[in-house]
């Protein structure tokens, strides 16, 4: 095992994928000499050459669109979108081409793109640098969507994403880039948990708290704090946002009878909406209370001085847990 930060683990995953397959090429802005603004690609241009680690001109539509052409030619492109809020110029290529080409061509053309996106807030950035656009891509059929929460998953799942013959949106929690963890660099991918599998990261009995990416660490903190008050929270890290692995969620909610979903993205039509609906369909008779969403508000991302009010934190998660448990909470006394 090796201790790595999350960004170092992604770097290691990229390196391994490039060593294993000469058709893996990286495209993005400032990913070469600079090593990426978050240093995720640090050293890769030096070791693999500028024909495989490609500093592109500033054009996200072109980064995705040329990756489509490279994929047609048998390459496995890994695109870096520098910040979440910069992905939209490439949105058309992702939604209209990347997601649909396999079906459009009766399965004859595969699009094994990996599109890496540093996402989420909490780092004090200006506008367009802290967004959580994952729901747009989960809503788009034909894409697989991943969000990692720790260095080992980052290393393993990036390799799985690159190996996937389907296109994968790979969301990296930028405020956790420097979080350290133990990583097994010799991990055999064939023995690793499936890319689509959710994971129970903290066992509990009273309430099921579901999240992904940057908020997994916060949810674990919330579980610890709740334990001090005698409340047992089971925390589930979704890992895969498309498809969502409902097995562990169903199993958990059947035991706890209570569900809280939390994410940074806005509430309306966010992942929480889908998860609450699906779990309600599947576990209706087991639910003891209405499922709860603890999310960012339905607002454009606020200026950084106020982002702490937008981002679900430990206290807001615990308030949501209290609602699920019927304990006194901020909405006590309100109907609906």
């Amino acid at each position, binding site marked *: 095992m090796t201790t790595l930060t999350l960004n170092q683990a992604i770097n290691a995953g990229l390196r391994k994928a490039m060593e294993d397959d000469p058709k893996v090429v990286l495209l993005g802005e400032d990913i070469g000499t600079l090593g990426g603004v978050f240093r995720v690609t640090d050293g890769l241009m030096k070791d693999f050459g500028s024909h495989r680690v490609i500093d592109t001109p*500033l054009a996200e539509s072109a980064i995705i669109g040329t990756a489509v052409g490279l994929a047609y030619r048998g390459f496995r492109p890994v695109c870096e979108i520098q910040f979440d809020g910069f992905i939209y110029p490439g949105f058309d290529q992702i939604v209209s081409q990347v997601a649909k080409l396999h079906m459009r061509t009766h399965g004859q053309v595969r699009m094994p793109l990996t599109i890496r996106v540093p996402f989420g807030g909490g780092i004090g950035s200006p506008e367009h640098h802290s967004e959580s656009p994952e729901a747009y891509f989960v809503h788009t059929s034909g894409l697989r969507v991943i969000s990692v929460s720790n260095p080992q998953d980052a290393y393993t799942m990036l390799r799985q994403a690159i190996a996937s013959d389907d296109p994968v949106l790979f969301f990296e929690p930028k405020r956790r880039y420097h979080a350290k963890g133990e990583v097994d660099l010799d991990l055999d991918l064939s023995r690793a948990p499936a890319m689509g599998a959710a994971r129970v990261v903290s066992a509990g009995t009273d309430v099921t708290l579901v999240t992904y990416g940057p908020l997994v660490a916060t949810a674990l903190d919330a579980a610890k704090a709740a334990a001090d008050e005698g409340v047992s929270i089971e925390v589930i890290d979704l890992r895969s946002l498309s498809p969502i692995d409902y097995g562990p969620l169903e199993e958990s909610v059947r035991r706890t009878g209570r569900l809280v979903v939390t994410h940074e993205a806005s509430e309306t039509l966010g992942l929480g909406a889908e998860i609450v609906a699906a779990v309600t369909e599947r576990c209706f008779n087991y639910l003891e209370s209405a499922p709860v969403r603890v999310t960012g508000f339905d607002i454009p991302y606020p200026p950084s001085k*106020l982002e702490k009010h937008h981002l679900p934190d430990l206290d807001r998660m615990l*308030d949501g847990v209290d609602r699920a448990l019927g304990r006194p909470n901020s909405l006590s006394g309100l109907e609906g």
Partner: protein
Amino acid sequence: MLEATASPGTSPQPGLHQLIAADGSAVTDELLAPFVADVDDEQLRGLLGEMVVIRRIDFEATALQRQGQLALWPPMLGQEAAQIGSVHALEKDDFIFPTYRENGVAYCRGAKLAGIMSTWRGSANTGWDPYEFNMATPQIIIGAQTLHATGYAMGLAMEGKESLAIAYLGDGATSQGDVHESMVFAASFQAPVVFFCQNNHWAISEPVGLQAHAPIAGRAPGYGIPSLRIDGNDVLAVLAATRWAATRARSGGGPSFIEAVTYRMGAHTTADDPTRYRGVTELEEWAAKDPIARLRAFLQVRGQLDAGQEAAIEAKADAVAAELRAGCIGMPDPAPMSIFDNVYTAAHAILDRQRDHYERYLAGFAGTAEVNTLPAGARP
């Protein structure tokens, strides 16, 4: 090979319009000269003063970022002539669509220092009213504003106005589809828009040669838009070229494109470390072409800048720096509930409900420590 390669044709070269050389000597340029024939030494001293002031703003803001008073700052060091020369070619009714780096333009246009800094402190997304002095707020999405300027100019043309819109953009932006589409629209509709491109040689770590294999100014004619490639560190050339473009726009001549060749002497932003990708030789080469030193020399050699005038300029810069610092440090934090403001122009049931719920949530902390700093278990 797949990688983009640096082009040799991206440093100053024949065809670069100039009125004041790097050493401060006058240069003859028949195309530009008529546009600044009226500019006297008093006005030149004014331009010098403004360049000195915005450089001081830049230093002060960089220092405030280092001290934790600003979250981020995008330096404009080295680009003072491009900013000051261009903004002075504009009339009050002209409308400016800037990038995030045109903070010197914003100051000279009338933006309050505290307003400018509020964005970089993280207190507000933007810090001025675009209609107060006809300047849109800083655009962060690379190149997006060129379409806005073109559309605004189309509106001016529809209304028969003689005003124009100007889009500021950088060399990196010229790779974005939006910029190309804006030039197509500008030409199709003969919109009175000026594309003012500051080629500062670097898009974060990517040299301009990676974005452009030939001088950027050469692209516009392909769209049917006349262009000029000018020395962007020569404030007089910048003023003249922008007046050339403005004259065309006001007289029904349609769009123009200016490539002002300059250099980003600082980092991309204070979060950037340029030592990772560029050498000192290049910096020294461009330091020798400094826009402020050049205009100062141009004035001094003819005895048009005495010690008293220099001292007055410095005193003004000192006063602006003090005002900036005080305004920044004294800036109140925005109210938490303001995150719900202005999402819509009218009531929105779902958002209103969220606002109500969050208000109740915050009320639960009344009388305790500040929200989000509570130890676990101290919540309501």
